[in-house]
């Protein structure tokens, strides 16, 4: 491994035990946690001050204990587009995901909170988001893909194509998808072309643009 500077992280979580756990996992994996915050205002302030590579934050937190975290994230993304944001959520709700992503899937992620315990998924998500990619929770994506629909072009997808579509929506690159399914990148590229054609989606450059297109398709 080349001696790259460690990725800088701000962690925001109002529950001290969990906050300590998240920080522990991140530091164990070589991230530099430059600041921790306990509420939404604190997060906005510390994100502005430290300009980290990525923020890892909860949704429900003071002051209002509703979706304060999401609202803070919107302010930070608007002010500092370069900061990646990974939201840890207790809710398997596509509504939050769509609201979080808005019209820019670049450098944004949404994971169910207990994924913190699933090291490979969690760390991979933090790195992707820090690098400007997207990382959406597999369960949320699964819910969106499998939602019953009347006469949808999705019905025309093969089961392998549906797997590939889900992984695209999670924000993985073709290489990432190929690794996950243990096939070649070329095979994935063929699947992707077929999917985009069946869903009548124009080819888009960049993984995060592809995420946005697929999300819009699935939620429309």
């Amino acid at each position: 491994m080349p001696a790259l500077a460690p990725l800088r992280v701000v962690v925001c979580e109002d529950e001290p035990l969990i906050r300590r756990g998240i920080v522990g996992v991140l530091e164990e994996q070589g991230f530099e946690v430059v600041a921790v915050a306990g509420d939404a205002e604190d997060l906005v302030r510390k994100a502005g001050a430290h300009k980290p590579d990525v923020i890892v934050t909860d949704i429900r937190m003071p002051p209002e204990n509703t979706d304060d975290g999401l609202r803070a994230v919107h302010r930070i993304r608007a002010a500092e587009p370069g900061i990646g944001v990974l939201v840890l959520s207790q809710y398997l709700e596509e509504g939050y995901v769509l609201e979080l992503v808005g019209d820019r899937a670049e450098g944004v992620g949404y994971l169910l909170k207990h994924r913190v315990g699933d090291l490979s998924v969690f760390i991979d998500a933090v790195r992707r988001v820090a690098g400007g990619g997207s990382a959406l929770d597999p369960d949320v994506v699964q819910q969106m893909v499998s939602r019953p629909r009347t006469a949808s072009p999705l019905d025309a997808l093969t089961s392998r194509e549906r797997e590939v579509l889900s992984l695209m929506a999670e924000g993985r690159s073709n290489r990432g998808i190929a690794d996950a399914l243990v096939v070649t990148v070329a095979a994935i590229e063929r699947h992707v072309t077929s999917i985009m054609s069946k869903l009548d989606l124009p080819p888009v450059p960049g993984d995060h643009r592809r995420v946005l297109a697929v999300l819009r398709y699935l939620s429309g």
Partner: protein
Amino acid sequence: MGEAAGTEQAREPAPAAGPASHELDAILASIRQPVYVASSEGVITYANQAAVDALGFGNASELVGNNGHWLVHYKRPDGSHFPIEECPLTRCREGGETVTVDDDWWVRKDGSMVPIAYTATPITMPGGFGTAIAFSDISQRLAAEQALREREVDRARANALAASEARHRATLEAALDCVITMDATGHVTFFNSAAERTFGHQASDVVGRTLAETIVPPGLRQAHRDGLARYLATEQPRVLDRRIELTAMRADGSEFPVELTVTRVNLVGEIMFTGYIRDITERRQAQEDLIAARRRVIEAADAARRQVTRDLHDGAQQQFVNAVINLQLARQASSSEDEHAASLLDAAAKEAARGIVSLRELAAGIHPAVLTDGGLADALSSLTAGLPFPVELDVQVVRLAPSIEASVYFFCSEALTNVAKHAEASAARVQLCVDGERLTVEVSDDGVGGAVPAAGSTGLLGLGDRIAALDGTLEIISEPALGTTLRAEIPLDEASALSG
């Protein structure tokens, strides 16, 4: 004087009379008392002018020489023959009696009948008794008596009517409901004491004034006048004989809700209306209190659900998350040396993760946080994602008051659960729209239909209660084979529509 004496006196001067002296003739001619004299055969020998006039003749010669009975006494008022044998005058002529009859009918020259009272006095003549008959036309007296009788009957009737009306009025007066009568021109004709108490008017101040200016609030007066005019013109009733609720006005100008029934009273030749009015302020208040109480109960239950959900998220779920993270940290720390410990830690982490999923689903079922955070659109989207059939969402509202959002959410949830259980539907549709001050929620499916509300679905009953607590209405349209539509309409006030 006794009759015997009269007969005696009458008998005395008669022979002296003989042919009437000029003096006597002049006296008889001058008096206004009709008199005629007949022979023992009943032939008229003399009639004075008053007698001629009373019987409608031109002069005495038309009478004299004729048999009195056959000339003026031959028929009864009903037109039947009057036999001479039955005539009381026969008693005078043959028996020498003085005869007085008060209620006879004689015939005038033109054949018409005239009521007569007479006294016949016998006159001793050669071969029997002649008769001197003094008589009077009693038509005027009879008419006067008749008029008197009629007046008495009228008075008796009027007294009876007055007594009946007094009883009637006393009944209305004592009624607990307000009773007000109004004539066709809209003027008050009666105002009972309940009305006095309710409206704060004295009957004497109100009777004679128009109903519109006394108890109808200004905003309703034109409608009242128009309605009365329209009814009088068309006779097509709109408010008659049914119970309606509207607003009335007290003497002090304050307005209050009343229940009104108007009936038309048919008096001879005039139209009257009677209104029975009941002050329903208390009943209305009780209804509103009931609705408010129901709403409070449901809101309290919703708040409790929200709290339980929050506690699950902030408590148990956080603790599980914490356990999962710590198990992961322990797994990293234990590393490769102890495979048995590592596999136990992995199993524990998986178990805890499943517990998190269960808690999340439990919390979402109790009161989804996304409803509080994102409103109905997000919550319904999440709700329908887990159903086994596609649901088209058409949600044209942004945010509403929490109590309404919760009720609408659970309404849709229960309705869609019913679709999943019973409808055999291939698709469903949820539509929410705000039209003015009214929210309409419609859940429809393409299933078998024929849902019967009374089929014992406590879920449906609960839905009705929730909607009723919001002062809304619930309608179920479920034709067999045409699917089922549940439609709730909920009034929105300014506070309930936060936006959208």
